[in-house]
């Protein structure tokens, strides 16, 4: 669709505001979504002809309120709501900034409610807050539109049937539920960033969506270290997006990336968010991961990276989130800081740790990292065996191609 109306620009900001306001006013998620959509259709027609109104948010809300009244007149089930809808339509259509914050936060918390299945939380957040169509979400997660429609409507039925409330919460509840919201946004980002099961390595649309959602959450909750940490993390990782893939769609490892292709504007925004996170003096997992990525993005080259600093940050992260993947990334940093032999030692220690071992048995990066370090230590036969293990565990086509290349070049030295 060629857009001369300015609706597309307004959509990003105004969609979640409009839906959130309507949810508060009507208490009905489906109605809010339907009339918000109708209001945007109307805007696409009218704004092209008449120009963008002075206060697009108020225009959209007035239009959506009228659509809600029209719709309720036609439906027997909804008719008893008309007096309330009429009363609302006489209220000021300029919603105060504080109210907009409360409403949008209530919308995000509702979509990420822990009584909703995790995959449905992700889908609902993209649909209701992000305004993506069900077809777009289905494409991004590589499932049929029918499957995604079912997933979303099932969770809406639960919200309605079980009375999951979309309303502002007190500070204690907010702090309790923020990690779930951060988790949903981060899982959207990782799904876009490295989709292990699929042929294409980066799905930028999901990365864009996650960066935008993290920015929105940071606007709504500007004084939480982990919210700022999450925003910093997704920006600093996303800044390297273009450099991670070569012209043939093959992955490019950090050491080989062309650092001039990193997105400076995103790095600056990420560093700014990180310094805001730092001010709270409370380092959580997102902030620590962002700090690690900040050391990467501020190094002039792979060799000049502050590897001791990276290892120290991974040590801090291990205290808070002792997972096998964190341990593996730490081991890879140890190899750069203290040499390949120390790194290999650290990787093999993961396989011996009772609480970590099981997570990593089929994880291709463990084997490929071992392969790289063994090759560096002049042990090509063992390295080839490690790459074979990695290939057996990997189901991403682009990464498999990369692993085969590495295996062949190591095998040539044997």
């Amino acid at each position, binding site marked *: 669709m060629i857009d001369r109306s300015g609706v597309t620009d307004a959509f990003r900001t105004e969609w979640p505001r409009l839906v959130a306001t309507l949810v508060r006013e009507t208490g009905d998620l489906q109605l809010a979504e339907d009339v918000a959509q109708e209001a945007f259709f109307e805007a696409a027609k009218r704004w092209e002809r008449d120009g963008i109104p002075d206060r697009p948010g108020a225009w959209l809300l007035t239009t959506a309120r009228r659509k809600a009244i029209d719709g309720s007149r036609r439906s027997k089930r909804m008719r008893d709501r008309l007096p309330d809808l009429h009363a609302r339509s006489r209220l000021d259509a300029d919603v105060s900034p504080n109210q907009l914050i409360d409403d949008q936060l209530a919308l995000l918390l509702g979509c990420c409610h*822990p009584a909703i299945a995790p995959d449905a939380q992700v889908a609902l957040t993209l649909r209701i807050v992000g305004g993506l169509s069900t077809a777009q979400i289905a494409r991004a997660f590589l499932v049929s539109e029918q499957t995604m429609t079912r997933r979303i409507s099932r969770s809406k*039925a639960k919200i309605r049937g079980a*009375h999951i409330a979309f309303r502002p919460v007190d500070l204690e509840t907010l702090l309790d539920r923020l990690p779930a919201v951060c988790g949903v946004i981060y899982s959207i980002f990782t799904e876009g960033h490295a989709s292990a099961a699929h042929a294409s390595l980066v799905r930028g649309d999901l990365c864009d969506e996650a960066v935008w959602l993290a920015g929105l959450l940071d606007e709504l909750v500007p004084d939480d270290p982990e919210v700022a940490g999450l925003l910093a993390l997704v920006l600093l990782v996303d800044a390297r997006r273009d450099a991670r893939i070569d012209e043939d769609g093959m992955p490019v490892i950090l050491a080989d990336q062309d650092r001039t292709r990193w997105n400076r504007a995103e790095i600056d925004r990420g560093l700014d968010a990180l310094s805001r996170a730092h001010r709270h003096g409370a380092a959580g997992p997102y902030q620590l991961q962002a700090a690690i990525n900040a050391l990467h993005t501020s190094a002039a080259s792979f060799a000049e990276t502050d590897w001791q600093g990276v290892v120290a940050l991974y040590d801090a992260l291990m205290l808070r989130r002792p997972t096998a993947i964190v341990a593996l990334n730490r081991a890879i940093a140890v190899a750069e800081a203290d040499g390949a032999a120390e790194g290999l030692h650290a990787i093999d220690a993961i396989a011996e740790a009772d609480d970590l071992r099981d997570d990593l048995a089929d994880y291709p990066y463990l084997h490929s990292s071992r392969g790289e370090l063994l090759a560096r230590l002049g042990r090509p036969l063992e390295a080839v065996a490690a790459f074979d293990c990695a290939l057996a565990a990997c189901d991403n086509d682009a990464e498999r191609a990369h692993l085969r290349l590495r295996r062949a070049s190591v095998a040539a030295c044997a």
Partner: protein
Amino acid sequence: MNYMLLLYAAEDAGPQPGSPEQAAQMQEWFAYSAALEKSGALVAGEPLQGSETATTVRVRNGDTVLTDGPFAETKEVLGGFYMIDVDDLDAALDWAARIPLAPYGSVEVRPLMELPPR
């Protein structure tokens, strides 16, 4: 002696919502309830919403763990019930997590069906 009658059925068995068969069956439900009431045996009875509206609450190591969907651990057996009237699901989940069985068992939280006034 009080007895509790627990009603189980596959969700795709029996008359489906909105069908003429279901409308006919409603009369059977009303007749049955009326007979129970008339006999003086009825203490309470309510229809529940479908399992897709269920949330299972468990408390493990002091943390409340929520799962979307009904409880499905065949080793656990139904041990009792509470019926509560609160504003929304969050309030119901809070009460569920405080049940003394929650640290070692499961509490399925299911909304009652809201029947239109007869």
